[in-house]
């Protein structure tokens, strides 16, 4: 029973009338018309060629390309994140040599186009025929590799994308580390923890809250940036679509196929990011939000407005608090 139910005052029968929003109805109507026009044009215009899109959406080359894109994204981001953490820690190190090297790396890799970097990695054999492990300057070598076997197309793509990403991730991680209150590392050092342990157990886990959202951005951006490896003829999603275009001389439907897959992958990544954020946000709220993405979607899609009191309780309860 609510307070409103058992009250007997006249005030308890007053109905609260919510503010009307005629503007919302107008906006909804305008948007509905525009959306209807768009959908109509998609369906009515034969040049979209939905039949072709349907036939190629699950074609083997497209699926293989999608998988390759995913592989490239994941590996490049692993290199990027690991490198970024290393560079950020170096950048913040009291050791001036480490800090300056990190600054130089970030300057160089952010300052040159990633496309050029990938092409240079791919053509490294032009500059260095062989890569050897040995002692410098004294012509003692232990092992020698041919550069071409060491750095494949795929290797060049990972190196180019990953090392470039590391420069950007370094700044993101650095921002995260700087956002953690200095009192945290002070408290940890007062407990006798050495700095490597403080970084790993105290600072980085808290920095993650700041690091995760922009990293999600970077990952989604990377997903699409992988399409530039078409320049070194690596068959990922965009290259696969391009191959169809080259043989059929029809372009838009295949681009749409590629976009559908890019969107699908982006959606999955977005949901995943939500879960990661929830994990690193633990302890940061007095009342932690419950449930993951699917649960929250379920709640949001339910009819009715759960954040308002039910219709039968929408009765003013003023004046009977003390009764």
């Amino acid at each position, binding site marked *: 029973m609510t307070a409103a139910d058992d009250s007997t005052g006249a005030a308890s029968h007053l109905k609260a009338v919510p503010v009307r929003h005629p503007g919302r109805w107008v906006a909804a109507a305008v948007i509905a018309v525009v959306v209807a026009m768009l959908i109509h044009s998609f369906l009515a215009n034969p040049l979209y060629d939905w039949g072709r899109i349907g036939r190629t959406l699950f074609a083997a080359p497209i699926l293989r390309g999608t998988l390759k894109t995913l592989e490239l994204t994941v590996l490049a981001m692993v290199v990027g994140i690991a490198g970024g953490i290393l560079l950020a820690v170096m950048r913040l190190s009291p050791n001036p040599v480490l800090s300056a090297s990190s600054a130089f790396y970030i300057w160089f890799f952010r300052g040159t186009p990633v496309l050029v970097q990938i092409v240079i990695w791919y053509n490294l054999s032009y500059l260095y025929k062989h890569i050897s492990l040995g002692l410098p300057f004294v012509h003692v070598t232990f092992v020698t590799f041919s550069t071409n076997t060491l750095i494949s197309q795929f290797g060049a793509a990972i190196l180019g994308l990953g090392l470039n990403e590391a420069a950007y991730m370094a700044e993101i991680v650095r921002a995260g580390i700087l956002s953690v*209150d200095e*009192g*945290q590392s*002070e*408290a*940890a*050092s*007062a*407990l*006798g*923890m*050495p*700095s490597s*342990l403080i970084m790993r*157990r*105290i600072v980085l*886990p*808290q920095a993650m809250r700041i690091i995760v959202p922009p990293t999600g951005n970077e990952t989604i951006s990377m997903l699409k940036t992988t399409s530039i490896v078409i320049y070194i003829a690596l068959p990922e999603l965009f290259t696969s679509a391009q191959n169809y275009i080259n043989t059929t001389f029809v372009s838009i439907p295949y681009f749409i196929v590629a976009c559908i897959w890019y969107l699908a992958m982006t959606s999955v990544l977005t949901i995943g990011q939500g879960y990661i954020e929830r994990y*690193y946000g*633990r*302890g*940061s*709220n*007095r009342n932690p939000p419950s449930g993951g993405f699917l649960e929250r979607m379920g709640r949001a899609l339910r009819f009715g407005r759960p954040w308002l009191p039910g219709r039968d309780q929408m009765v003013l309860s003023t004046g009977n608090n003390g009764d």
Partner: protein
Amino acid sequence: MVRAEGVRKRFGVTEVLKGIDLEVGRGEVLCVIGPSGSGKSTLLRCINHLEKIHGGRLSVDGELVGYQQRGDRLYELREREVARKRAEIGMVFQHFNLFPHMTVLGNIIEAPCRVKKVARDEAIERAKRLLDQVGLAGREDTYPRQLSGGQQQRVAIARALAMEPKLMLFDEPTSALDPELVGDVLDVMRDLARSGMTMFVVTHEMGFAREVGDKLVFMDDGVVVEAGVPRDVIANPQHERTRNFLSKVL
């Protein structure tokens, strides 16, 4: 336990400690009072080498803080050695500085498990006893932000005690608390003092200093102006500056 001889410290060109001499015996409680900016917190932070001193000698339990003397030279200690010494000194901060991403239990057992390599079960056992001691039994799985300031500070005390320190430093432990929560924290500190812990307390709580302190030091502008038995210093200050300060806080 703590001995300071002519300790000097500067930040840039401003000298914040201008030759501090004081001594805390084993099992003693020393309270430091003084206006803000007098250098009392800095002195406390020098004791576990969170701040480096620029002159004089500072030793804990007979060993220099942050340095090693060989012949007539002082060698700065490596980070690991400093960390090892810090592990024997507990510290409680004004703003608690609990680790927000760990539960209360996680906060308490982190350092014993990872620094002293105590077995996890044993650390948990001791953590529970300590939580009981500070009046927070059963709160192991709460996150710090779900606790009140007074409760957080008591967890912070338990966290420091979990390392079994031989000396406890308190840096204005009740200054950030609502007035009605101060008492709980002071009670815990009073019990700790009775159990024989050596304590170095920077505080504004005159009542606590008078009742629990064995020694009271009044600092102003980087020097010790007056020191003595708390009751005497508070009731009968010898220096104008002490009188001035006391008239404002009492």
